[in-house]
């Protein structure tokens, strides 16, 4: 009911005669900025239906002649489906691993008293200063020594420990009254049972939010997989896109194919975003506090 009445009033405001100049200006500005932001995506969608010649004709911004055949080419000829599966597997492992580990870390930080607790937390936060790209050389060396080169372990392992997720869970746990855990102590409820039956159900929104952020972050990994994975069939989709670029037609990059690949690569994180946008927004709101 509420939404209906708002949309009715919005409608009423948009009726001619009711619009004053200032509002028109504001709305015009908003429309233009949304259009500008959406433009690359729109162009990618259009180009993904065009052949190479059409793409190079700058003025040609209609639906191209290829229809969906660029998508078929990408998925068939270029083995893009395999890259997608690899990416999904990698991202899911990272999400599950990161959330699990961070939950345990935050549990330890919030509900246990141990010496130098604050220092430990600070040290965890300090790792934010050293993201994977900064540590890429020593990390490569480490992976090589462990014999993890060119394996799933190499592209997931380094991402499992996450200061951001630990921080978010810690802040959330700290907002839960201490008397809940004290009552659990009195009842003899163990830490794992408490985590599983109390903390996790009470943190569902936060867990979902962190999972979305982590999934998108993991999905977009490019540099590290490019370096550590030598086997093309084990590569992830972002690097797979790069392979598409290598395939040129008479010296011209086949942008139609690349755009089709980009659109495909966009779909899983988009789906995750659409499904989980509510908990994600809540998580971000907490972050702002």
């Amino acid at each position, binding site marked *: 009911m509420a939404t209906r009445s708002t949309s009715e009033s919005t409608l009423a405001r948009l009726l001619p005669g009711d619009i004053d100049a200032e509002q028109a200006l504001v709305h015009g500005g908003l429309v233009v900025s949304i259009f500008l932001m959406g433009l690359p995506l729109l162009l990618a969608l259009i180009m993904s239906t065009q052949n190479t010649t059409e793409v190079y004709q700058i003025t040609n911004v209609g639906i191209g002649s290829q229809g969906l055949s660029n998508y078929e080419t990408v998925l068939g000829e270029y083995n893009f489906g395999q890259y997608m599966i690899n990416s999904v597997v990698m991202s899911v492992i990272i999400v599950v691993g990161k959330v699990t580990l961070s939950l345990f870390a935050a549990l330890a930080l919030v509900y246990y008293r141990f010496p130098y607790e604050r220092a430990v937390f600070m040290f965890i936060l300090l790792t934010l200063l050293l993201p994977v790209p900064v540590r890429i050389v020593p990390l490569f060396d480490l992976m090589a020594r462990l014999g993890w080169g060119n394996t799933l372990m190499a592209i997931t392992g380094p991402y499992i420990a996450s200061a951001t997720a630990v921080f978010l869970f810690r802040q959330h746990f700290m907002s839960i009254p201490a008397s809940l855990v004290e*009552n659990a*102590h009195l009842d*003899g409820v163990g830490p794992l049972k408490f985590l599983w039956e109390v903390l996790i159900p009470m943190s569902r929104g936060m867990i979902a939010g962190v999972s979305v952020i982590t999934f998108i972050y993991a999905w977009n990994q490019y540099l590290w997989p490019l370096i550590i994975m030598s086997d093309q069939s084990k590569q992830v989709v972002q690097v797979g896109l790069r392979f598409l670029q290598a395939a040129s037609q008479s010296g011209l990059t086949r942008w139609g194919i690349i755009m089709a690949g980009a659109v495909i690569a966009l779909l899983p994180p988009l789906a995750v975003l659409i499904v989980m946008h509510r908990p994600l927004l809540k998580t971000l709101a907490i972050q702002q506090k």
Partner: protein
Amino acid sequence: MSDIHIDGLTKEFDDVTAVDDISFDVDSGEFLVLVGPSGCGKSTTLRMIAGLEDITSGELRIGERRVNELAPKERNIAMVFQNYALYPHMTSAENMKFGMKSVSDYTSEEINERVRKAADILDIPELLDRKPSELSGGERQRVAIGRAIVREPDVFLLDEPLSNLDAKLRVQMRAELLQLHRELDATTVYVTHDQTEAMTLGDRVAVLNDGQIEQVDPPQMLYDFPDTRFVAEFIGSPAMNIVPIDLAFGDGAVAHHESFELSLPNPELFTERPDSAYFGVRPEDVSLVDNVAGDPETFEAEVSVTEPLGESLLVHCLLGGDELHVKAEARTELDAGDTVELCVDEERLHVFDDAGDAIYHSSPRGETVSDAAETQVEP
């Protein structure tokens, strides 16, 4: 049910001593109230009994067991928290069962039976399927108490359980707690900052101040024979009047104040005989002379403010540089600036020394105890 023995209990945080060498016993089945202003260490004491705070020194025994080193769950206690500490994602019944399930010696049928029984006692069977967010403050408190009951613990600990409730509900829950205690006959330690709660609920009341025990006594004893000036002023509302006096001991004892002179009965009851001290009398033990029969010693004072309390009129009087509160009859016609003649109830006078310890009560201690037991009214 078990008794609790506390001997020399001390808690030091980094640089503060929150609880300083306190000792008291709680008898089996007794309802003991720890009362004091905020920061007096009452909650810390309770949390040490629960095992939520480590004990710096001293000994804590529940029943015959020394429990200093035992984990909270091994002490077989249940605690009710000020904020109820209910799990928001569980229904009332699940909340009550949650702790039981982790003690594995109960079958789920036994647990269900106990939850049903507790719900009946607390009159909340219809709330069992609701979540805390769907309950009012009073209902949440009942569920929290129910969760404590189902465990059938040796000792109940309650940490300001009523302070989040509104005034009317607080009075009602107070009566229900009292009734519940009678039914369960459980050893209970109850923490509050509210002296009315302490007086109405406690079999005995321990008054804490600054980490130390001022006095442990039944409520009426505490009221009639405060051991210290702190207890005298903390217990009772409006608070006891305290004015500085000079003492003269001849045949009897005479208190001199700039605006009155009063001979104190039973001078042999003085435990010390200093030259100066503090004279204490409760507002209801001072009366306007018009209302008193006989020929008592009187003195004059000037009315500064009057506060109608409904059932009585609280008159603020100026006694030289000091203020004296007098509980007069309701609807007494008095205005600021009037001069009134006052007298005191000679059986209810107190004198405290400079250190704040009581050195004199005008009645012999214990005389009113049997009296007290009878007059102790239920809320």
